[in-house]
């Protein structure tokens, strides 16, 4: 086992490290934290977002028929084995201000927020995952994980899709080795004592930083205080990680070696990131996550599909046949990889059902017709059962393209137990997901 440090009893850890920590705080937290676990009545619910860039060839993506009798399209065929645990949707849009032209930075920033990004400064809105993480993240080491296969922001104003607050975009991790170390400790070696010592040193460093920030805040203006407040919030997050790590019971996990780095092949990279996500969910290290197949407007190409042109260039297909064919081929591959993830989640038992049954995962792209940067009528799939709250095996067609995607998010938040009244451009809940 490589995560032994995680179940060290808190007190042992304190004694061993010889450091005095905020015990009263710790005691106060315990009752709240012992609440729900994997009981059949209240299984842990998880919320994920798997985003692929640059849209689809709609003709080959859209299923035939409607409702329970739908037929899988070419692009979605690899997902057929999971039919019973997914809902395909069309007609939803993420286009907050319809008078504004679409572009990559906007398509990315509005996808999970439903907010028209401000021009000339970083001001968007909290994203749906972070809203959920405020509640679902309380009991796990990581309130949320943000993952990708590339550095997330290239080009002008790409700050990513995840916003902790309107002004705080979160960075993404794309290196499997670093993700592994973040989840399971550094060095790839089993050394609970060293891990405990590290956590104690971190805690004491964070204490002194917190003190210093309090001094500084008294001397700074409002804008600056807000920046330091981000630091304080991050400290609280890390402290919670340290505290949760010290009291979490061990979980049975398969062995997994620390990855050496970023695999050369993109599909291998995606699979490895999916493996690590599965592990993080299985170990209950987080309940909220966002994974991007690649960054917005990515220029990667796909030698394994015999595609040498960059994805971004293909996506501006201008309805030329060659490029549409390539895009469709990529779409199939994307589905195949997502199917890999679903199979993995579905193979892990939790109580009487599986990890997948207890999760709710949105799988989609922030562009529909990429050649014109359209964010309307997006290709969206919901997978997983949210612990019996969603009935799968359906294709829901929402008429036109006026229904905000954020309406679906409100419903998803309901399903994972974080009821919310308004998110970005939402106009109400979607009422067609009931079991």
């Amino acid at each position, binding site marked *: 086992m490589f995560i032994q440090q995680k179940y060290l009893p808190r007190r042992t850890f304190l004694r061993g490290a010889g450091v005095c920590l905020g015990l009263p705080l710790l005691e106060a937290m315990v009752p709240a934290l012992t609440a729900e676990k994997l009981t059949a009545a209240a299984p842990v619910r998880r919320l994920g977002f798997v985003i692929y860039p640059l849209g689809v060839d709609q003709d080959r993506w859209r299923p035939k028929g409607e409702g329970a009798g739908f037929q899988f399209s070419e692009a979605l065929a690899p997902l057929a084995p999971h039919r019973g645990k997914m809902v395909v949707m069309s007609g939803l849009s993420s286009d907050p201000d319809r008078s504004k032209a679409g572009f990559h930075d906007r398509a990315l920033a509005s996808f999970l927020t439903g907010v028209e990004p401000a021009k000339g400064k970083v001001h968007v809105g909290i994203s749906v995952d972070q809203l959920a993480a405020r509640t679902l993240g309380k009991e796990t080491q990581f309130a949320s994980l943000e993952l990708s296969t590339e550095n997330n922001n290239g080009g002008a104003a790409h700050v990513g899709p995840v916003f902790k607050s309107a002004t705080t975009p979160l960075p993404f991790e794309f290196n499997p080795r670093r993700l592994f170390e973040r989840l399971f400790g550094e060095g790839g070696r089993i050394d609970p004592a060293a891990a405990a010592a590290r956590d104690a040193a971190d805690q*004491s460093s*964070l204490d002194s*930083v917190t003190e210093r920030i309090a001094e500084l805040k008294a001397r*700074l203006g409002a804008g600056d205080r807000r920046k330091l407040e*981000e*630091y304080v919030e991050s400290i609280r997050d890390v402290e919670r990680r340290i505290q949760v790590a010290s009291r979490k019971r061990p979980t049975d996990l398969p062995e997994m070696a620390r990855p050496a780095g970023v695999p050369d092949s993109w599909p291998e990279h995606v699979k490895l990131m999916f493996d690590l996500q599965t592990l993080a969910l299985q170990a209950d290290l987080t309940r909220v996550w966002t994974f991007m197949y690649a960054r917005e407007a990515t220029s990667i190409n796909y030698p394994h599909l015999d595609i040498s042109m960059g994805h971004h260039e293909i996506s501006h297909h201008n309805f030329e046949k060659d490029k549409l064919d390539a895009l469709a081929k990529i779409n199939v591959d994307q589905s195949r990889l997502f199917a890999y993830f679903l199979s993995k989640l579905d193979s892990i038992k939790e109580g009487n059902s599986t990890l997948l049954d207890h999760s709710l995962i949105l799988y989609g792209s922030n562009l529909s017709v990429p050649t*014109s940067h359209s964010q309307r009528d997006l290709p969206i799939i919901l997978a997983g059962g949210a612990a019996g709250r969603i009935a799968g095996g359906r294709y829901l067609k929402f008429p036109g393209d006026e229904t905000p995607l954020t309406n679906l998010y409100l419903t998803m938040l309901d399903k994972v137990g974080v009821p919310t009244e308004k998110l970005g451009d939402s106009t109400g809940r979607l009422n067609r997901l009931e079991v």
Partner: protein
Amino acid sequence: MKRKAGYLRTLPIAVCLAAVLSAQTESREAFTGRNCLGCHSERTKSGGFVLEGISHSDASLRPDIWEKVAKRVRAREMPPAGVPRPQESSAAAFLGGLIAELDRGGSRAPFAGSPVIRRLNRTEYTNAVRDLLDIELPLDAELPQDQTAAGFDNIGDALSMSPLLLERYLSVARRVSALATGTGEASPVVEIFPATGTQAVWQGEGMPFGTRGGIRVTHYFPKDGDYDLRAFLAKESLTPLEGVRFFRLRLTRMKAGSHTVVVTFPDEYAEREGPVLNVGGPGGPAIGGPLDVLGSAVRPTIEFRVDGRRVKLFEIGGMTAGEAAFDGLPGPPALGRIEIAGPKNATGPGETPSRARIFVCRPGGASASDEGDCAKRILAPLVRRAFRRSLAPTDLNPFLKAFEAARRGNKPFDVAIAAAIREVLLAPDFLFRLEFDSADGAPGSGQPVTDFELACRLSFFLWSSIPDDELLDAAAAGKLREPKMLEREVRRMLADRRSTAVMDNFAAQWLGLRELAGVAPDKELFPEFDAALAAGFQTETRLFVNSLIRENRSVLDLLRANYTYLDERLAGHYGIAGVTGPGFRKVPLDGASGRGGLLGHGSVLLLTSHSTRTSPVLRGKWILENLLNSPPPAPPANVPPLEEKTGDGRKLTAREQVERHRANPSCASCHDRIDPLGFALENYDVIGRWRTKDEGGPINASAKMLGGTEFAGPQGLKAMLLGRADEFVHATLERLMTYALGRELDARDQPTIRAIMRQTEAAEYRFHDLVLAIVRSAPFQMRQKQER
């Protein structure tokens, strides 16, 4: 001077005109009434812009509105085509009066802005650690990429703190403090470095010439001692000897510190080594030979180098690539990863530059007070440099506390110092560039930043790092603001090696060069393209821009330089004769070369191409965005498809395809601005080679701008841009100011930019002059008090 800035030529006249405005020319109201308000009324709101009802009496009260008007009128974009144009003289008078009034407003109440405190971005963090502890580590790769705004990753607004980042800070600070003090664990650790990218070609800069594939790492060896270096073959490549998958070399008595390790396959070599050690396959010791890239009948060899010196050559034997191909096997062998394991038999922390920098004192006596004094003497200069200011008496307390706690826990002295240094690296005073408002003055009022804050603004602008002791001393003495001192410091900093940060961070982001790594032309169409060529493109542009910075040349040279930097390969690629042998050198260019200036650089030309063909649109957009700071709006939704072929089935040239686009009036409104700029560069293909025809036929590189200006080819384009030098310099200054100030500019900054242009025009906008003028400007010297 023939090529003089357009608006500067008209400005003096315009100012005169403005003075006698009421008597001799129409009023501002009359001008806008006749030329603007028809569309920009409350009712019509063309382009979402309303001029009706805006006070015309003092433009400087609404710079947000009037700067926009000035910019569009000056660029002759307004009134738009199809609407009667005002007389040149009346437009010039209107513009001159407007700008003079805006500038008067700017000098009456200089705008400084109130930037939020900035977190160090990962480049700055890495450099700061380097300059603080004298240790060079690739920390930027260990930190998440920073968010960008306004085209740069040093904009305070976008630099947020997150749990992920804080966790990385905690971990990096632990590693750095242990390595710098030489106090890390002595137990061996295995570090793994996987191969990246295609292994079939030379791996680019830093690899020995004439090698194929391989891995190059700069690794910090934590202790004096022995280390094992292991090279593993990639899974899919041949097993040269049954059962042998890796080759090991013991590096004995390595000195602690940074070393460069290279493992690669040489194409050819003269000498041979004896039997391979540590290879216990059934065939006995391996005998092999050199490997040919294309797989001729020579046998693979692996070469190990440390700090540029060949330390080992393994003849790994096995099938040749040719034999493998015959059997339908993959090949030739490629590296999968290398591992560095150690230290073994560690003999001590070694004499590293970092330890010399840190341990300026050793505790002599046994008493605790003596030791505490020593810790203070070690930490005080470090913390001063880290916090970039004189220290208050209490500043050291948290770090002394960490030191003492570690000592109480029976940690050795050096380890306790490491614990203190770690906390320094986590302190907000280190991680953030703090600037404080003074107690007096109302919110919004301008006040000079302190000398230390100014020193910081300078060092992060020019070095992307913390100030050095000399700069801090000048600030501490209160002398940094003295004009002579300030100039001397700026010139010293620009001459310092660290000023390459201006290229690597400012210019690389400005010109989009950081995107170059992700660009790969189609392999089948451009088999000549490989990592070496891509690296060559980067090197050319880097050396070129650096020379301009270092030699204090005019920024106009970015467009018109008659020299560049080439090696034999790149010169051959460009078709320039007379450059032989390895290495880049300065090469003079004549008119016939078709090169000179950024617009002839392979880097820029590749960056602005599609993978299979050139794109006049992308090239035009790049010029508008980066050289004229006038980005076109995003394309609208629902663009109709374009045709690729003519009626008779002939493929269209890239230009013809784009021309069809422009035949559609709704496309033409923007593309008439974009495409002509790109057409002029059609003689350069996707990978920057000169050409006279493409798939569709002969190249037509002539172009006609919206206003009717005609030009042809790169020389014509350059001449046209130099004719609009004021716009180019204005754009360059806007980018440089944004980077220097770490905030987005707004309309109120325009008077400052125009003032700098006037100050630097006589000497043709030399780079150091621009930097000095920015450094002396109000926004750099001052800040406006924030709301509490």
